[in-house]
């Protein structure tokens, strides 16, 4: 098979998988001066675990102290806040409160506060019941107590990953989508066989998320962990619900129950979820009516006003968990390969920290770019200026999310155009609002005609 696109010359690093982790790795290596290629199995980036999460930038206050996960979150959190500013990514400092609803939970609070301090999150502070109700008057008055973590933020999970990848691309990296890595040979350098041909690279990083163990077997003939997908379902409430609560409400984890989170999104909605359901399937992200009904009643119990709020949508994400309680990051020095596996439920927050860690492991000998190009990123926050408020936006196409024609065209004609309607939704928020496409589907079908690999209207006839 011919080598693809790099015409015989090899890359310094091939990254397998363009989830949030792969995107962050691509950016790090590129900025460090390496020639990078990213190989993604799906038609578009962010098609795996990174497609659905709670979109919280965690401080890591509750991570296992001393774990690799905790270290990566702490480093990732710090770098995120700097990077977001440089790239123009919107962040919302919502803060969070861990709330106890029964005595068992209340009993856990002191330990959790201690843990937070151990993890270097020193601004946590206990809250009495009346302080909680004063700050969030719509919370059910059955709350007993809690503590606050002011540093928790809300971010755009998709724009974040896109921004990392766009910055990598703008500074010379390559992204090949629809290219599943099937096997690899290592003989001083790597030759990877993909569904689109062969790719030659000095080093390989496996960031295949839900397929991390599978890819390790394909490349190394062995695996050191087994992915155990854990589904999380969410219910998304209408924007009106965001008037009910501003702080992220986190549960106290206990042995018997795992509570749900209530948080706003940076797009102005309110999320209730996620569930934690172990399953075999690495692809089944279906939602279930009875589970969603349970989520709704749990949400209403904590925030009674939700009872009269409309649901906008529901979705599920799959955590790439495994049998161990920590990230599985391993450097196979004899194979010039790093596995970045089991980035289970905090990868959005830790991705930049993981990238620093992996760059340290590989120790590539490039020359860091002095003036890296800053790409144009998606700015879709409800709490920041949007394109529809600017001149020359060419009119609104998606009325619920107020997405302008100019925004959609910019993305369709941009350096990393979407291949599917899901990709367009993640880049612009079209069809993600109350009407779920009632008003804009037809217009979008026309605007995207011939531009998507999987068209919006299927033309069976040709």
């Amino acid at each position, binding site marked *: 098979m011919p080598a693809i696109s790099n015409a015989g010359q090899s890359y310094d690093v091939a990254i397998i998988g363009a989830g949030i982790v792969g995107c962050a790795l691509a950016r790090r290596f590129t900025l460090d001066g390496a020639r990078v290629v990213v190989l993604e199995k799906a038609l578009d980036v962010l098609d795996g675990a990174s497609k659905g999460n709670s979109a919280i930038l965690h401080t890591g206050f509750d991570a296992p102290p001393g774990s690799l996960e905790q270290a990566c979150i702490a480093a990732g959190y710090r770098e995120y806040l700097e990077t977001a500013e440089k790239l123009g990514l919107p962040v919302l400092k919502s803060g969070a409160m861990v709330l106890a609803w029964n005595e068992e939970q209340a009993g856990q609070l002191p330990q959790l506060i201690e843990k937070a301090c151990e993890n270097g999150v020193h601004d946590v502070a206990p809250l009495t019941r009346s302080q909680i109700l004063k700050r969030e008057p719509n919370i059910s008055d059955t709350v007993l107590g809690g503590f606050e973590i002011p540093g928790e933020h809300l971010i755009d999970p998709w724009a974040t990953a896109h921004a990392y990848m766009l910055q990598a691309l703008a500074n010379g990296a390559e992204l090949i989508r629809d290219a599943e890595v099937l096997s690899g040979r290592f003989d001083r350098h790597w030759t990877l066989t993909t569904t689109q041909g062969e790719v030659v690279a000095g080093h390989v990083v496996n960031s295949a998320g839900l397929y991390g163990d599978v890819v390790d077997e394909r490349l190394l003939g062995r695996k050191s962990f087994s992915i155990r997908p854990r589904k999380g379902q969410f219910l998304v409430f209408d*924007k009106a619900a965001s008037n009910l609560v501003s702080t992220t409400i986190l549960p106290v984890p206990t042995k018997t129950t795992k509570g749900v989170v209530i948080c706003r999104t940076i797009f102005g909605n309110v999320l209730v979820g996620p569930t934690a359901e172990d399953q075999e399937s690495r692809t089944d992200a279906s939602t279930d*009516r009875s589970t*969603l009904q349970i989520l709704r009643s749990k949400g209403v119990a904590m925030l009674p006003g939700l009872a009269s709020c409309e*649901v906008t949508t529901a979705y599920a994400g799959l955590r790439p968990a495994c049998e161990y309680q920590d990230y599985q990051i391993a450097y196979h020095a004899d194979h010039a390969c790093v596995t970045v596996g089991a980035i289970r439920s905090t990868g959005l927050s830790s991705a930049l920290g993981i990238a620093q860690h992996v760059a340290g492991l590989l120790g590539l000998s490039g020359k860091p770019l002095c003036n890296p190009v800053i790409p144009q990123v998606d700015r879709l926050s409800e709490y920041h200026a949007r394109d529809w*408020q600017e001149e020359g936006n060419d009119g609104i196409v998606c009325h619920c999310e107020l997405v302008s024609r100019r925004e959609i065209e910019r993305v369709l004609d941009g350096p990393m155009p979407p291949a599917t309607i899901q990709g367009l939704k993640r880049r612009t928020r079209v069809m993600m609002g*109350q009407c779920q496409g009632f008003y804009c589907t*037809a217009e979008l079908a*026309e605007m995207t005609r011939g531009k998507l690999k999987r068209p*919006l*209207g299927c033309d069976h006839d040709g």
Partner: protein
Amino acid sequence: MTDERCTVAVVGGGTAGLALARELMRVQVGRVVVLEREAEAGGIPRHCGHYPFGLREYRRLMKGPDYARLNRERAKAAGAEIRTGTTVTRLLPGGRLELSTPCGPSSLAAERVVLCTGVRESSRAQRLVSGDRPGGVLSTGALQGSVYLKGIKPFQRPVIFGSELVSFSAFQTCAHLGISPVAMVEEESRIVARKLFTPYLWLKRVPLYTGVSSPRILGKNRVEALEFEDCNGALQTFETDGIIMSGRFRPESALLRRSHIAIDPGTGGPVVDQFGRCSDPTYFCAGNLLRPAETSGWCWTEGIETARRVARDLGQPAPSTSVPLVTKDARLRFVVPQRLTATQLEDGMEHMYLGLETAVNATVMARCGDRVLWSGSLRGRPVRRITLPLGEILRARPDAPVELTLEG
């Protein structure tokens, strides 16, 4: 920035908004501006490429697009300004509107604003339908828009989810595409549109499943099947490449929810008195935003009547002392109007409009304290048009909340 000013601003140039604007011009209230976010005014009928439209309004049998054009032309000819591509993004107290136009943001101040933003269908998520999230799940509105406005054929053998009137419109849209649905599936225990539609399905050899539960959508990238339990609890799986999520109308109230105007949880639209006046008396409402959902002919008439009320209100504002009209009976989903201004009897709605939660056959009473102001009989089913006279209730001049109760 100083606002541009007009006498009446109409938000939404669909059937109700256009009829209203034309009538306002006819009675010469002053400057009337219709704000329409689509590239063309006309509303939902623009993409209803079927009959029957226009019988009541123009005594002519028309298809939706022709009817929408006529509504548009009449409003324009009467002198109303129609601004398309203009989205109203905020409603502010006292009739000030923030707008987004292709050139950028602007604003408009009106002496009265009439909200006519219509209804839409509930999405798959709002009905909490289980399963995967593949492509090929469309509302009737999105289907009709794709087919009639853009010439796109979204699927070959869809399942229609729902059995309301609009579900049968979806049927007609399929016929227009030369395709036949593989099934009609309804969660209610019987067909929601009138029973007389059943032979139609039978003729077209399309199976109807009512009383289904646990619907689940299967499919990776595109819909592959719809699975459900039929009324006997047996698991049914229909292979299909599309699902039309039809009906279960909800007022298009995104704008309202972000505003200062009171919303009625029952209808999902604004709280109005019998003049269609909202909690902020500079705002009025007409058309399907008032309640889900009526035919175009009905909304057209509502537009005209509301225009006359607005015109009168401009000359001489009606007193704003009103009492609530409420119901606590779980069988009643909503009542319009939600308030009564008993200090002015003339020129308001002659009927109240009820929405039912379940089938009802009962006596209905309007009580004010221990007085019964009116009683009558009520027989009907959910989603059907149910109107009851308001006159006697108003003439009794209630000075405290009026409650509707059902007996039997």
